[in-house]
């Protein structure tokens, strides 16, 4: 048990009516102690039924447990209490997307974007792309897609995403990813020499660099940042911002000159921006 979790548990034990359960539940969720997180969040909701953040916490724990229907109930409760709750809009958008209810997913993600959350920008564009491919040439608010058309649309989007940077990278010792605001892989691939796909792991590990870069340029008054490049023992990593929330990542063998890696990054950023911008 981490020091934080122990401290928060003791604090909640001293005062069971405290809203410190929100921090404790989140800490447990992040450390993958989902049974304990569920217990803490459920008790929190019982004691604080009118607290939107309590329902939001319970919903996020439910999603992590794969209980999408229960999560939906909680996020709907959040929106009854706080109709402008961005977290609930994002959460419902995610759940509805997973349930292939694309129009409804687009509705909630669109509202989250309107409320100023740039982290949903890429997710919203991907849902709209799926809708466009599912509904043919019809606008996004067309009829609900049937299973076959949706499956075909998903395959088409996956194929486009996988091949997005292929012609830029060629057969060279380099790879590229497009990461969304949550650090999830939107496009590209990262396969190790032994054939293991580590794209999600690499994306999750490196996406936090964006926040640090944002903070650095803001406080040092350097304007917008264009690239972060660093050399490791085995590779050169280059990161660059894409639209409001996304990140392009290029990893290349150390044998490639830094300048070449930078040019590859620029081309990947341009490609990603034009691909994402095809759907507004």
């Amino acid at each position, binding site marked *: 048990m981490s020091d934080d979790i122990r401290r928060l548990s003791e604090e909640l034990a001293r005062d069971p009516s405290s809203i410190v359960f929100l921090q404790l539940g989140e800490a447990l969720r992040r450390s993958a102690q989902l049974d304990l997180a569920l217990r803490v969040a459920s008790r929190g909701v019982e004691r604080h039924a009118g607290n939107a953040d309590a329902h939001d916490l319970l919903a996020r724990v439910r999603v992590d447990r794969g209980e999408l229907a229960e999560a939906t109930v909680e996020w709907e409760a959040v929106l009854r209490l706080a109709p402008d709750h961005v977290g609930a809009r994002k959460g419902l958008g995610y759940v509805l997307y997973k349930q292939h209810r694309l129009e409804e997913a687009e509705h909630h993600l669109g509202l989250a974007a309107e409320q100023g959350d740039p982290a949903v920008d890429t997710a919203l564009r991907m849902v709209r792309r799926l809708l466009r491919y599912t509904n043919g040439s019809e606008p996004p608010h067309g009829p609900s897609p049937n299973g076959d058309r949706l499956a075909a649309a998903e395959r088409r989007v996956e194929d486009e995403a996988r091949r997005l940077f292929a012609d830029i990278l060629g057969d060279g010792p380099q790879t590229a990813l497009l990461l969304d605001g949550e650090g999830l892989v939107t496009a590209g691939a990262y396969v190790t020499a032994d054939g293991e796909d580590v794209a999600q792991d690499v994306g999750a590990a490196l996406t936090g660099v964006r926040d640090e870069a944002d903070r650095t340029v803001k406080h040092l008054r350097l304007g917008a940042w264009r690239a972060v490049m*660093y050399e490791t023992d085995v590779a050169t990593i280059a990161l660059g911002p894409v639209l409001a929330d996304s990140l392009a990542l290029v990893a290349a063998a150390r044998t490639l000159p830094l300048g070449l890696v930078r040019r590859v990054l620029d081309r990947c950023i341009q490609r990603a921006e034009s691909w994402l911008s095809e759907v507004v």
Partner: protein
Amino acid sequence: MSTPYTDVLSAVTRQRGVLGCLLVSEADGIIVEANVQVGIEAGVAGALVASLYRRARLGTDAAGLATVGFLQLEAEQGHVCAVGRDGLVLATLAEPKAHIGLIRSAMLRALEVL
């Protein structure tokens, strides 16, 4: 006042376009030695660059890509460069038109001396 690191930093600040060079602790961003132009808040810059370098190093470790060497952040109005070793980060702030190749070489040489 001269410290054991003064000459190391001077070798970097001599490069054209360099606005300042700092040696900071990676863990907490505390400055060990700094040589920056007037107007640059060394404490803020040191803390930010140490944090950026640390985040990159931890992310790279987690991704299984081994140790971070030279790091460069390129922005509209300047560059931030960093190299690290044994819990210390050597950070350089430079103008947009600075020659990053020369700065990189100077920083890597300086790192060997640290």
